[in-house]
């Protein structure tokens, strides 16, 4: 048996210290819904698991001040059903509730969710585990081995932010909503605490697709914060997938609006399921800002978001679908204005 140690960290500081002591062979584990999966698939081979799911206080959900603060190990379910989140930030709540299944959401944490890895089938199913017969080259899994998805079965792959090395989609729904809401990630590392805007948290694949996060080794996500804004209310997370639940997005849009009557004062638009990172579209935002929202304008905004998109063999439909999802999301969000 491969040796594997498992310890429960009592505090964030203890977790970070333990990670540092393990010298690179450790992984934090929270709900385990992604990490155990990756271990069984033969993609992750940690020697030490440091369980952060019981750290005192790191599950706190604070909504009193002028920010919303979600502890890194708060459960997806708990955040989604927090009254303030549910009622005043539907974009956040819906992004969680349209993800995975109730059972998974009861285990999975909002911090772990940020760090889940791509669903690219060549990445997941090609590591040579006995449970998955495949052995596929993949730059993300084995840097330099090549990308099987390019020229292959890429129907679910990205059309934005791709590179010659990798076209894998960033899978999470919650990070897309956080991207629209300009969230900040709070971290604790061997060098001390650090805050990073979510826009700087994710890396484009470029020629290093194996490096997905701007997270230093051993850094622990302690919290996620979102500045309170009236845009939260006129918001939605709209997700289109291959079935009505229990599936990742083919295309999704997180939209939050501030409106004067029918006119859009500010718009925040982020996309999921179509890009290699959670994807903010300033171009789409610019189209609707300052104008009365009509279905035609909404669709124009959607199209603008995909101006630089590039389809592969089977995924070009996402360019049109993604534009329409944005259009629908804008209309839904606008209908929710106070």
């Amino acid at each position, binding site marked *: *048996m491969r040796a594997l140690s498992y310890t429960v960290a009592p505090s964030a500081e203890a977790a970070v210290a333990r990670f540092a002591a393990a010298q690179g062979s450790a992984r934090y584990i929270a709900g385990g819904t992604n990490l155990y999966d990756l271990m069984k698939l033969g993609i992750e081979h940690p020697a030490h698991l440091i369980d952060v799911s019981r750290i005192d206080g790191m599950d706190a959900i604070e909504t009193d001040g002028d920010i919303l603060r979600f502890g890194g190990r708060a459960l997806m379910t708990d955040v989604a059903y927090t009254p303030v989140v549910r009622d005043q930030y539907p974009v956040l709540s819906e992004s969680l509730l349209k993800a995975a299944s109730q059972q998974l959401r009861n285990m999975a944490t909002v911090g772990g969710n940020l760090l889940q890895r791509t*669903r690219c089938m060549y990445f997941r199913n090609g590591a040579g585990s*006995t449970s998955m017969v495949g052995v596929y080259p993949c730059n993300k899994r084995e840097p330099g081995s090549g990308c099987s998805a390019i020229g292959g079965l890429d129907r679910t792959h990205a059309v934005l932010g791709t590179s010659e090395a990798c076209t894998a989609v960033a899978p999470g729904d919650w990070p897309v909503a956080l991207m629209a809401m300009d969230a900040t990630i709070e971290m604790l590392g061997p060098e001390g605490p650090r805050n990073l805007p979510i826009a700087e948290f994710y890396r484009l694949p470029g020629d290093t697709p194996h490096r997905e996060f701007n997270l230093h080794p051993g850094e622990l996500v302690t919290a996620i914060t979102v500045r309170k804004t009236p845009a939260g209310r006129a918001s939605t997370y709209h997700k289109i997938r291959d079935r009505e639940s229990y599936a990742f997005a083919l295309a999704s849009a997180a939209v939050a609006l501030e409106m004067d009557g029918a006119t859009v004062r500010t718009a925040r638009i982020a996309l999921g399921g179509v890009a290699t990172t959670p994807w903010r579209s300033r171009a789409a935002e610019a189209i609707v800002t300052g104008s009365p929202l009509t279905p035609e304008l909404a669709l124009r905004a959607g199209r603008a978001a995909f101006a630089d998109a590039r389809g592969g063999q089977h995924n070009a439909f996402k360019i049109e679908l993604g534009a329409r999802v944005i259009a629908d999301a804008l209309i839904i969000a606008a209908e929710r204005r106070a």
Partner: protein
Amino acid sequence: MPTQAFSEIARVDARDKVLGRAQYGADVKKPGMLYAMLVPATIAKGKVSALDVAPAMETPGVVQVLGIGDFPALRAEISYRGQPTALVVAETVEAAIEGAEAVTAVYETAPYIPLMTSPGAQRVDAEGFNAGDVDRAFQNAATIVEGIFETPTQHHNAMELFGTVAEWTDGRLTVYEGCQNLDAVKAALMKAFELSLDQIAVKSEQVGGGFGQKSPPKMQTFLVAHAARLIRRPVKLVTPRGQLFHIANYRPRSVHTIRLAASAEGRLQAIIYDVVQENIPDGGFRSTGYHEDIARLYAIENFRATAGDIHIDRQMPRHTRGTHPFPAGFALESVIDEMAYKLGKDPVELRLEHEAKNDIIAGQPLSPHFLNDCLREGASRFGWSRRLPEPGSMRLADGTLVGLGVACGIFGASMSASEATLRVRADGTTRMISSGHEMGQGILTAIANVIIQGLDINPDRLEVLLGDTTLGPQLATVGERGTASCVPTAAKAVEALRARFAELAGANPPAGNLHQQLARLKRPYIEVKVSELAPGQDASAIEAYRTGGRAGTGPDYPGFTSMSYIAQFVEIHIDATTRRIRMPRAVSIADVGRVVSPRTAKSQMYGGVVWGFSTALREESEVDPRFAGYLNDDLADYVMAVNADIGEVDVGLIDKPDPRINSVGVKGMGELVMLGTAPAIANAIYHATGKRLRKLPIRINDVL
């Protein structure tokens, strides 16, 4: 003499299943049991030139590794990706996995043809069929509709994986595993290990879904049995789903070219039909079977069918729920729909006008059947009359496109000879030894209901036994013939037992239920053993049943042919902007003859709609030709329907016996129940959008 309608009883094994007491193959635990894992080949075709099992042997916990040459099934020649090259046996399942992952192979690769569309793939023609004068009918036709239809490679994906436990005691082999044909497994094991009848037992008391995938004997059964004998300890293997995608059978991709001719009066006159499917040489799933059911669906006298196979380098495709009539029916029911539009006829009306009386294949009458009742009942429950005929003409207030679609299905009502032993005891218990496999379809409940409704016994102390070769012969539970075979035999056993009791009790039987009566008569029990034949069979069929021969027959019997029928109606909504496809409503009505167990029959009907929905809009096994394996080989990526996908489903059964097929009038339904859903959905999408989609699965990108 067909019986009265049956009243509804609960599923007899529901409580055991809910409480986790029902035993499946993989649940079996034996003292000292070891765990095994297969090592799959990672090339599509070629040869293993070297296999290094040493690292596996060095893995702590590994007890034994069988490699190339250690057992006939472990061959150096590789003919599909995933073909087992070794079996690792260890003290724990984790060690077996780790050992299996430590085995390395050196391959010589050979060119391969992964898909029927791959360069070099060639069609091999199979036998065709002709009835009537097709050419003349087409020459005289006023309206012709044609299309090329395609259904994808799909895997059964029963919830239960392939789980096998093998144990040897004093030279006697016992195997526990989920399967649909115990006698075939038993015979193959006897041959492979040179065993006599008293040296073998195969048990499959509960099967967690078969759908055809568990019909043929599995390679793993032999490997596990061999390992258990070699090591002298029980061995268990539960093959992971990713491997099953590659080694278990599947529904082959098939392409159907169909032309339908109608006369100036709007009568459907003739069909020219061609099918080609992916297959392996000498594959067990015949391309010649596709036309056989659909040619009997309507009164269309002229029918020409041609068929072919394209040989591919993957594992063997085989029967999958709905088998031939599902892909062929998708083509037929789509062109019937298209013809209705061309003729300006209502699609229900057009079907009603073409009720078949004759089987053009066997050239004899069809047994009385009730497809038109299904259509009328379905149309009324569904509210078909509110359909506006024009495509794209129905919308919701928010712009959502609405489509209503209908389609029918037909499946041969075959039967098998079988035996049963029924014993009622004075102590209040009853035991029925029957035959077959409980796969969740409810065969136990159906048999129990025949006994409960026929005899005054304690229903909660009735035990129905099957799925175990030590009980006696076990008929193959395939082609939806299990219930239709066992139930008439059970009915005969009930009759025989009543007769025996009457003989025993004389003119003045004592009071009480049957158990009390026996007690008063001082008889500890009475027992009958009966056998029942399908129409036209003679005693040789029972002999075949007893010896593992071909005991099945039909759906064409001497002088008549019997089929099961279904009509399904669906409502499809398509979002105006994103084109998300949903099915808020479906109605499914079937003629399966006499309904023996209303509860489990309805359950089949619901499941059939879900399965049909999933085949139409979700499922496809994806092969990347550069690698030849199945890329989406798990339940996250092989998209199947989930609860949230399924709207309101209303099911109904005509429940009129087929007077000719057997004493109860019962026909099969397990495959039938999914047949109409996919074409009904495609027809509804056409009605909603004006777009005729001829390739499954239909996905959002097809309607954008």
